[in-house]
């Protein structure tokens, strides 16, 4: 049988790929910030400030605005003198024109005196229509906030917990449970902290937590999140014994473990009520128990960390020197 000649195939290879190859995609920057692992041989003091177990806490709004103003080459708000914006606007009427839309609106409202716009919203929209000709609605301010994307409209930690709670692909049930959890956190009394189980160093006072349930949830999860996991390398310890190797975890990995532990502990709790919201209530009670230092999740975290410390000599196993 003569070898089949396919001229088309050879010609097809000559076409250029319109989509970037996988290799070029791989160099894209990593989205999730990882906790830097420190070797034992490294110096005690880290080169740069570690991010800590939580995400980096953003600076104050004013500081951020100053940084933004600096980047844009404008003055930004004056934080050194502590001058109120109204004063600046009063002494410099020109700045009022360049002030953001929201500030101008607010000033307009204050003159109204009621704290509520008297004119109809439709009229207000008509005014802005003049501001941006050619558009039905005012253009959004750029850059867009991270939660303005449809796929990322919920807080990352809320989204993570929701998807980990989801069973049988029933997302809306998980979302309802998530909102019930947040409601429970908002309506329950502020937690009493246990000094034996310290939370994150940057934790706000407990009285602030119920009014910010997302922060409450994040604080509980990030506080019990383990820093590492134990990888059992089979046969590496000799004689068929597995070698325990501590492996550092990234932010999302740590949170995932903490949430899994939390949900496991919650499912073992006893349900008090009946009906749909039972599981959500138990999860919420477990979150409060974590913050109060009563949860068994803390013991799990302690056990993993203890094992990690005892196996710290194995960290460099299999690494090239």
């Amino acid at each position, binding site marked *: 049988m003569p070898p089949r000649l396919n001229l088309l195939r050879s010609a097809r290879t000559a076409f250029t790929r319109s989509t970037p190859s996988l290799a070029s995609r791989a160099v894209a920057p990593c989205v999730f910030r990882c906790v830097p692992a420190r070797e034992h041989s490294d110096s005690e003091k880290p080169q740069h400030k570690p991010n800590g177990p939580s995400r980096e806490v953003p600076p104050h709004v004013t500081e951020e605005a100053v940084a933004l103003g600096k980047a844009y080459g404008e003055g930004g708000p004056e934080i050194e003198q502590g001058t109120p914006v109204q004063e600046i606007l009063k002494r410099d009427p020109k700045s009022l024109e360049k002030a953001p839309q*929201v500030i101008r*609106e607010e000033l307009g409202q204050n003159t109204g005196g009621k*704290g*509520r*716009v008297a004119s*109809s*919203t*439709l009229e*207000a*929209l008509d005014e*802005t229509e003049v501001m941006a000709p050619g558009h039905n609605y*005012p253009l959004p301010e750029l850059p867009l906030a991270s*939660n303005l994307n449809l796929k990322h*409209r*919920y*807080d990352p930690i*809320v989204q993570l917990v*929701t998807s980990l709670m989801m069973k049988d692909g029933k997302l809306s049930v998980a*979302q309802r449970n*998530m*909102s019930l959890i*947040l*409601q429970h956190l*908002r*309506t*329950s*009394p*502020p937690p009493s902290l246990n000094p034996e189980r310290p939370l994150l160093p940057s934790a706000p006072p407990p009285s602030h937590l*119920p*009014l*910010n*349930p*997302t922060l409450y949830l994040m604080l509980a999860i990030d506080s019990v999140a383990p820093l590492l996991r134990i990888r059992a390398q089979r046969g590496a310890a000799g004689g068929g014994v597995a070698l325990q190797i501590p492996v550092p975890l990234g932010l999302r990995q740590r949170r995932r473990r903490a949430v899994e532990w939390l949900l496991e502990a919650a499912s*073992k709790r*006893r349900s*008090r*009520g*009946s*009906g749909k*919201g039972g599981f959500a209530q138990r999860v919420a009670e477990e979150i409060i128990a974590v913050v109060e230092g009563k949860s068994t999740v803390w013991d799990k975290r302690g056990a993993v960390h203890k094992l990690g410390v005892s196996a710290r000599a194995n960290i460099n196993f299999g690494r090239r020197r």
Partner: protein
Amino acid sequence: MLRCSPSIHPGSRLFSTTPAFLANPIKAKRPDPNSSGPQKGVKSLKIKKKNTLRSAGRPPAPGERKALRKRIVLSNTNALEVKGMQDLSNDNMADKQIQGTVVGLPGPLVDQLRAAEAFRTGQGWGLFRRPGVLMRENSLEIARDLQDVVSGKKTLRRIYTGERGSGKSVVLLQAIAMAFLKDWVVVTIPEASQNRIAQDLTNAHTEYAPLSSSTTTPSQYVQRAYTASLLSRISKANSAVLSDLKVSLSHKLRIPIQPGTSLSHLADLGVRDPDIAWPIFQALWGELTSTKAARPPIMLTLDGLGHIMRDSQYRDPAFKPIHAHDLTIARHFVDHLSGVRSLPNGGAVLAATSASNVPFAPSLALAIDQRLHPTTSASSPSPSSSSSLSSSQQMPVWRKPVQRNPFMTYDERVLQSITPDLEIVELQGLTREEARGLMEYYAASGMLRHRVDESFVTEKWTIAGGGIVGEIEKASVMGPRV
């Protein structure tokens, strides 16, 4: 089965009156090696039953779990006190100035509303420092109408309908609150309550008996336990008003009524003895509607109208379903709603449909649809429906004329009970100003962590299907995005 015992001598047989059993005695069963059952002395696979989680604590008492589910929480100590929030009062309830603001319900009024079971679970009362209601267009409308009732001794008869989350039950609650403030007598038949559920009027969960005095066909049925609970609700919620009113008519009851008895005491007699609850209720109603003495106007409300606009779950002796209108309490309400019976001292008969717990009541749906979208003027919105948009902004929409489904059987009794002079109000979404007032209240309570500005309000208003208030609540404070 009779079995011969093994005899001592193989040849001899024991005396027996039963026929001789000639066959050899049955040998003891040898285990069959092919059988699947476990054999003696041989280990077999045992699968342990799964360890079911047995809790150590005491099991919940009967009704405890349900009570937790049906609990109505009206306060959240974490929420911030809203500064400058007005209280609902007789002076400001019809004031145009408070449209679009949230007003608080004063403490004694909250107790009355709780006794009348006007609050429902899932309405979000538990998120805020104290109960507050948004004064929307329909709230002011009902306030004005109640004033007209007082001045003209008229009877306001109205059904609130609208899509799910449009605020039907809360408007009803506002009407009840206003009636309490005006010292009316309020009689409520709630949709869902702690002890007597919802559909309990018709879902055959309470006992019933034919009314002995009824001579009409079909015969009437009385629910004694439900009537007693209704009387208890009336007595608790209206205790201040009813204790001042004295019995003026003579009643033929099984127990003697003293001439100077207060109406509150009269109601309590029925609460104590369910057997006479229905005659007591009739006597109380006769007292309240009598024109001989000075009587306050009455407000009669029912939430979840669909439940009494169809066959009930009860059965008559021939095992045919009993129509809900043949139950005395439902009949009492429907007669007042359709205008068959009137309130001589004035008052209001209000009903709200339910969109989250919807019974199959096609006749009611048809009657409401025909009234809201009459075939004669299909393109124009009906005058009774209040709309958030003005007519100039509304596009003329061609609607398919509402007609009877030829494959459906309709209930003529229900269709006739929705009389032409009965007002039907379809609740629409909030206007954007009202939505803004509501969101500012959320933000001031600390429940909404966002700046309430034009774009935010517009966004939520749009997401909420054009200001459907339940959806606004879901989008801004109840959802996972807070």
